[in-house]
């Protein structure tokens, strides 16, 4: 129990610092804005209640926002993502698959399951983020392009981050 809590706090701080100090300073053109911090919400345990998911999403989104100077933007997108996370899990797994598993991570569920799960959540997050940034339906084409490119780059970055920081199995 405490192990999970400490691991999640470390993950929160680590991913937030990674996003704010490194990822946000990498300029990949106007259309690509990789988001790595959302991995924190993706990796929360299966038995996390929905309200806790959303509060966690809000907190990490809001802190990233404060450093970006865009209060509310990332927070709104991350809360939406956290709200839909249980639905996405239900969509990608059968009940029997989850039994005995604690968290939707690569080490427990395998990359084959994790990848579509991550991409779906990233699409939701980025679409909401860029829609709010554009704040108009006139720019929908640009928003979709931005989402597409960002999701591709974000997925690659997240998979890299997972394999760089792969936790040692305690067996």
């Amino acid at each position, binding site marked *: 129990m405490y192990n999970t809590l400490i691991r999640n706090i470390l993950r929160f701080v680590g991913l937030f610092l990674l996003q704010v100090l490194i990822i946000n300073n990498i300029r990949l053109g106007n259309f690509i804005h990789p988001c790595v911090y959302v991995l924190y919400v993706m990796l929360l345990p299966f038995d996390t*209640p*929905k*309200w806790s998911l*959303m*509060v966690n999403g*809000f907190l990490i*989104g809001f802190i990233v926002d404060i450093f970006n100077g*865009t*209060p*509310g*933007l990332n*927070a*709104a997108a991350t*809360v*939406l993502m956290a*709200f839909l996370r249980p639905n996405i899990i239900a969509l990608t797994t059968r009940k029997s698959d989850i039994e005995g598993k604690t968290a939707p991570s690569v080490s427990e569920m395998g990359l084959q399951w994790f990848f579509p799960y991550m991409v779906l959540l990233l699409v939701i997050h980025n679409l909401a983020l860029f829609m*709010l940034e554009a*704040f*108009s339906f006139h720019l929908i084409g640009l928003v979709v392009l931005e989402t597409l490119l960002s999701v591709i780059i974000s997925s690659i970055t997240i998979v890299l981050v997972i394999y760089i920081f792969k936790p040692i199995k305690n067996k």
Partner: protein
Amino acid sequence: MYNLLVLIKKYHATILFVLLELLCIIMIINSLPYQNRKMVSVSNRISGRWHRTLANWDDYLHLKSQNDILAEHNAMLMNQLENVSMTSDSLIINEMYTFVPAHVIKNTINETNNYILIDKGAADGIEPDMGVICDKGVVGKVVNVSTHFASVMSLLNSYSVVSCRFIDNQYIANVVWDHMNYQYGRVQDIPSHLIINKGDTLVTSGYSNMFPPDIMMGVIEEYDYDENEMFSKAKMKFSTNFSTLRHVYVVKNNYKAEIDSLCITH
């Protein structure tokens, strides 16, 4: 009551979701200028019609006093016309600027950022960044335009800065709002060596291409001199009474494109 609690317990996740998203969107609209202006533009379109109807009714109640004000302004213009033939400068001004009369249909004076809604829009040739004046003095500048309405950022706005000139000695300064009272503004960037008296008059400088020169801005109320500073400040009383604003004129600069093409600044 029990049923309500059961309902809240059942839908607590959805309720929390809606609350958090609302909080985020309020933060976005309040803090990001682009989203804020977009929102103002949307609400203009929706509320413009409604406010115009209300303003129409309200206008009837003020017809008499408005007539007096217009007659007074008319008399003043007649007097100016007498002088026009003598000074050639005024004739050039008349060619350079044209004025579009408009009605104020919504106005606030108590917010940190006050906007005025007028009943002329893109269909009448109004564009963003045009100046707005009234018979008493400067009102603000157009920030957002829909087909039939435009929103004007009044001088009572934290983003508003207008270049002005002392009528006595031709020195230039900037006028901003003091955020406290709709009657008073603050004059900034006054060179410290300047001697300013209570009652000195400020007019527009005409350097911004937004307002014609020599439009009344206000009168100095208080001067706080600090000899250690390079520039000093003063309190100014606006000549425009923002709380009774009804008729305004949008200033069209006929040579704006030509002048802008010479300016290298963005």
